[in-house]
């Protein structure tokens, strides 16, 4: 089932939480809604579930407008951040609950619940109470309960945020495996970019109630549409250097007090941008350390952070701090002053005013 948001807005007490959202999800696709806390991810999900009604716009399931459909008429499965297991029901009864609501005969619903429980490796815990389960087990019950009625759409609201790192990785794999196996259209909500990148086919980045970019993970990473996306994606975050775009002779250059960066002919920006205040965006792994000043940015060493195989160097270019990934070997004999040579393919130019990426 493909899903479409057409100019959907949602206001709480006249305060817009979602501002005319447009989004299309293909049948069987796994998408993630990624954004900082409070940006409206859960609100969007609740509208898909039918728990909130959009203030304006339409939500389509296939060709049907579902704005006025109750949650129970939508055939969706949902996993809540708190898991929301029924504390007075056993694991098996929890999983069978949606089938009970559909009046599936007892024998059959228990059989189907057991089947799904097996899918998420819960068969040994069927008679336990939710309070007797660990976080990971509770989450699997929640997933099983969401899957048992074979939903057309699976909604996951930060399902992994209460798990420790090890478990998180396991569950990510499990959920991806289940999703591919069952081919359910899935929407995952998360504030964890790593999670979104690993799991989803496409990621929608949400900020201030608007979609900033909706693309496959590698495109978000390599071709961010604006400053927000560039800043949000990647760890450590992209480095930004403020300067002014000018023409020097026949060359296009970004200049600042302490450095300059010249564009090659093929990378040059349209003429109309000349004179703008811009931010250069370069990722930590796309700066190389060199002793030569040609085409490079002068930097002063501030600190080293050892991460095992790699080292993060914190350095200052003029008044701005940057991070650079280097190998252990290089980091050990670093002078205080050196140069950073940017990988030209990885340099983005953002309009400081609008945040738009001018170099796409």
């Amino acid at each position, binding site marked *: 089932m493909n899903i479409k948001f057409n100019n959907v807005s949602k206001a709480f007490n006249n305060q817009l939480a979602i501002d005319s959202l447009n989004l299309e999800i293909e049948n069987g696709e796994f998408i993630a809604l990624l954004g900082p806390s409070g940006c409206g991810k859960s609100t969007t999900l609740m509208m898909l579930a039918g728990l909130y009604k959009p203030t304006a716009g339409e939500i389509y399931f296939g060709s049907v407008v579902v704005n006025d459909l*109750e*949650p*129970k008429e939508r055939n969706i499965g949902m996993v809540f951040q708190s898991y929301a297991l029924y*504390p007075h029901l056993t694991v098996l009864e929890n999983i069978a*609950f949606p089938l009970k609501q559909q009046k599936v005969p007892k024998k059959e619903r228990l059989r189907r619940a057991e089947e799904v429980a097996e899918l998420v490796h819960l068969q040994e815990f069927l008679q336990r*109470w939710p309070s007797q389960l660990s976080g990971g087990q509770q989450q699997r019950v929640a997933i099983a309960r969401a899957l048992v009625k074979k939903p057309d759409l699976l909604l996951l609201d930060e399902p992994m945020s209460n798990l420790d790192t090890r478990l998180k990785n396991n569950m990510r794999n499990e959920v991806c495996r289940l999703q591919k196996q069952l081919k359910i259209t899935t929407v995952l909500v998360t504030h964890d970019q790593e999670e979104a990148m690993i799991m989803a086919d496409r990621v929608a980045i949400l900020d201030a109630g608007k979609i900033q970019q909706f693309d496959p993970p590698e495109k978000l990473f390599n071709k961010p549409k604006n400053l927000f996306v560039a800043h949000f994606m990647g760890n450590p975050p992209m480095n930004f250097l403020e300067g002014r775009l000018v023409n020097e002779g026949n060359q296009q250059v970004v200049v600042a007090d302490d450095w300059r960066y010249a564009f090659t002919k093929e990378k040059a920006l349209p003429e109309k941008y000349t004179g703008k205040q811009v931010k250069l965006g370069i990722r930590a792994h796309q700066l190389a350390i060199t002793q030569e000043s040609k085409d490079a940015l002068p930097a002063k060493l501030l600190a080293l952070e050892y991460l095992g195989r790699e080292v993060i160097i914190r350095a200052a270019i003029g008044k701005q701090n940057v991070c650079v990934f280097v190998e252990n070997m290089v980091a050990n004999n670093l002078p205080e002053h050196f140069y950073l040579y940017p990988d030209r393919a990885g340099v983005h130019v953002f309009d400081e005013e609008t945040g738009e990426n001018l170099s796409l």
Partner: protein
Amino acid sequence: MKRWFLPYLMLSPFLILVVMFYVIPAFITVMLAFTDMNYAMEWRFAGLVNFEKIFTDPFLPVIVWNTCKYVGGTLFFNVVFGFVLALLSTYYIQHEKSGIFFRALWMLPRISPPVVYVLLFLWFFAPGQYGLLNALSAIFLGVEPQNWLSEYAMLIVILANGFVGASFGMIIFSSAIRAIPQDIFRAAKVDGATEFAITKEIILPLMKWPVMFVSVWQLLSLLTSFEYILLLTGGGPFLDTEVWSLYSYHRAFVGFEFGYGAALALVMVFTAFFLTALMLKLFDFNRMIKSSRID
């Protein structure tokens, strides 16, 4: 030495009050039960005479039956009605202020003085054409005035107590319903539950603990309190609404059989203990305090 002394010092006024007004009277009551004290106010120990008298008292079957009807009926009314009120005012009326207003309304009988409240009831059910119910039924149904209070005495007693008591259950159940996380209701809706199913399969089972608490609490207070009955019917007509505690009061302070009254009270206290233990067993108290209920 000082560290433990101060708290005790602070508690002692309260402790003295408790001893004076609870412990000593209880002790005296137990003692009295073994005397045949009457209006002459003489302490004369009489062994188990009073208890023998209880079991041969010709009024006893009626009193016990009345007590069962009164306690059972009122308890049922309180719990069911209290639950319905709580459900309406917290779950179905999601608007916070309306819910609070609705609940405050039901608190009125509890905060109005019993005498005033009973007067309202008496006026409502008064015999003759000036009683409110009679006036209303004359206008709308055209029927003759009835003497409600003598014909439906027990029912009216139960109603009067029920309306007061329901607010207790309502408050307890309301806070229990609010303690259920919103996500549980959302999950249930997504899982396809109707509002009725949510009430029956989610809310009701989670009310087991509060229902037990309210039942035990109300049971004890209903067994021992009789002021509304005394004010409404005085136990009449004949012995129609004479319950155990009222009977004990009547024997002691109207018939001046203090010894016998005390014995009746003592038996009632033990009955209350027994019933409480039975209820805790019935509701599986141990399992409930062990497992977390809502997390």
